[in-house]
C-alpha cells in the first residue's frame, strides 16, 4: 500500500515514538473529515469511504472493502472520525515504515481490529487478510506462531500477541541500531 504522492495525507506525519498524530495534524484531519462529511452526519458512508481511499492510496476495491468492514466495528455501514483517525495512523505508519512500532504501541486496538469475530483470538487467516495494511511477512507469521503460540491452539490470544509485538519491536530496534552503526563506520572511513 502506498499513499498518493502530493495528496493531503501525504503531508501529515506520525510522531515517531508514539505513532500518533500531533494536535496540529489532528486539527487538519478534522477539517478534512468535515469536508468529506458531505451529509453532515459526522460519518462517511461506504461510497465516500471507497472514493476517499481510492483517491489517496493504491488499494484495490476488495482491499478497500476489507478495510471498511474492519473499521465498521459497530456494523452501521458508516465510519466515524475515531475509525477514520485510526485508519490514517495505520496508513501513515505503513507509508513511513513504522509498522512494528505502531503495532507495539497500539497492540490492543490492532488486536481488536484483527479479531473480526470477537473471539479474543486471532489466527493466521486474520493476519493474511490484513497483510497489505500491517505488512507482516510470511516468514514473520511462521515465526510468530512457532515462537509465541504458547497455548498451542494455532491461534494467538492477546498476551501472546503482545509478546510478539515486544519481540518484533526489539528486533526492529536492533536492525535500526545495526544500520546506524554501519552508517557511522562508513562515514568514519
Amino acid at each position, binding site marked *: 500500500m502506498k499513499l498518493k504522492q502530493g*495528496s*493531503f495525507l501525504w*503531508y501529515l506525519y506520525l510522531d515517531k515514538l508514539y505513532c500518533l498524530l500531533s494536535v496540529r495534524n489532528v486539527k487538519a484531519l478534522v477539517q478534512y473529515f468535515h469536508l*468529506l462529511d*458531505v451529509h453532515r452526519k459526522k460519518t462517511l458512508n461506504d*461510497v*465516500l469511504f471507497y*472514493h476517499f481511499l481510492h483517491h489517496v492510496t493504491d488499494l484495490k476495491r476488495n482491499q478497500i472493502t476489507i478495510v471498511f468492514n474492519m473499521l465498521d466495528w459497530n456494523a452501521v455501514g458508516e465510519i466515524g472520525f475515531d475509525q477514520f483517525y485510526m485508519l490514517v495512523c495505520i496508513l501513515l505508519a505503513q507509508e513511513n515504515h513504522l509498522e512494528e512500532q505502531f503495532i507495539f504501541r497500539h497492540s490492543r486496538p490492532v488486536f481488536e481490529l484483527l479479531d473480526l469475530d470477537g473471539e479474543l483470538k486471532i489466527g493466521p487467516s486474520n493476519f493474511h487478510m490484513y497483510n497489505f495494511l500491517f505488512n507482516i511477512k510470511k516468514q514473520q507469521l511462521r515465526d510468530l506462531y512457532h515462537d509465541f503460540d504458547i497455548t498451542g491452539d494455532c491461534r494467538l490470544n492477546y498476551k501472546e500477541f503482545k509478546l510478539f509485538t515486544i519481540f518484533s519491536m526489539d528486533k526492529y530496534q536492533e536492525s535500526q541500531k545495526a544500520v546506524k552503526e554501519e552508517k557511522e563506520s562508513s562515514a568514519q572511513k
Partner: protein
Amino acid sequence: MEEKPFKALAKSSGHRGSGKSSPHDIRNLWTTATLSQPKLNVPLPTVREDSELEGSSVGGKTRWSYNQKAGHDSDGGWEESDDGEDKDNFKPEELDEHALMELEMRRGSSLGGPLEEDDSKTDSEKPSSVSSLNISKHTPHRAYWVEQQSRLPLPLTELMENEALEILTKALRSRQHL
C-alpha cells in the same frame, strides 16, 4: 477567537475615523484589539518567525517547506523554516512599533482600564514602565501570531479543499451512474 480581532477592527476604525492608509494602521488596530488579552507564553523567536510567514506571499517566498519523506529520519509534513535574516529585517519595524506603543500609552483613557493603570505610574517607576512597555510591545501581537500558528498554511488548505472536492465529485458521479 477569529471574531474578536475583526470586531476590534470595526470598533477602532470607528474611533479613529482615519482615512490614511499607512502600513502601520493595521498594526495599530491589532494592538488595540489585543491589549486587554492576557499575556500568552509564546517564545518570541517563534512569534517573529511566524510574523514573517504571515507576511510572505504564498507563491513566492513560502516559508512552509514541504519537506517530505527524505528517509526514516525525516519528520516530513509542513514545517516552519528558520530564516535568520528575517529576524534582522524585523528590527526597523520593531522600533516603529515602539514609537506607536508610546503614543498609545499617552492617549490612555480612551482605550480603557489597563492603559489607565499604566498612565498612573509616577516618574520613579519609569524603569518598570519602560520594561512593561517592552513586554507590551510584543504582547499585543502574541495572540494574533498564536492564532496564525494554529492555522494551516494556505497551500495546504487549498490542497485539502481541492482534494475533498475531487473525491466528492467522483462519489457523486458514481452514484449518478447507478
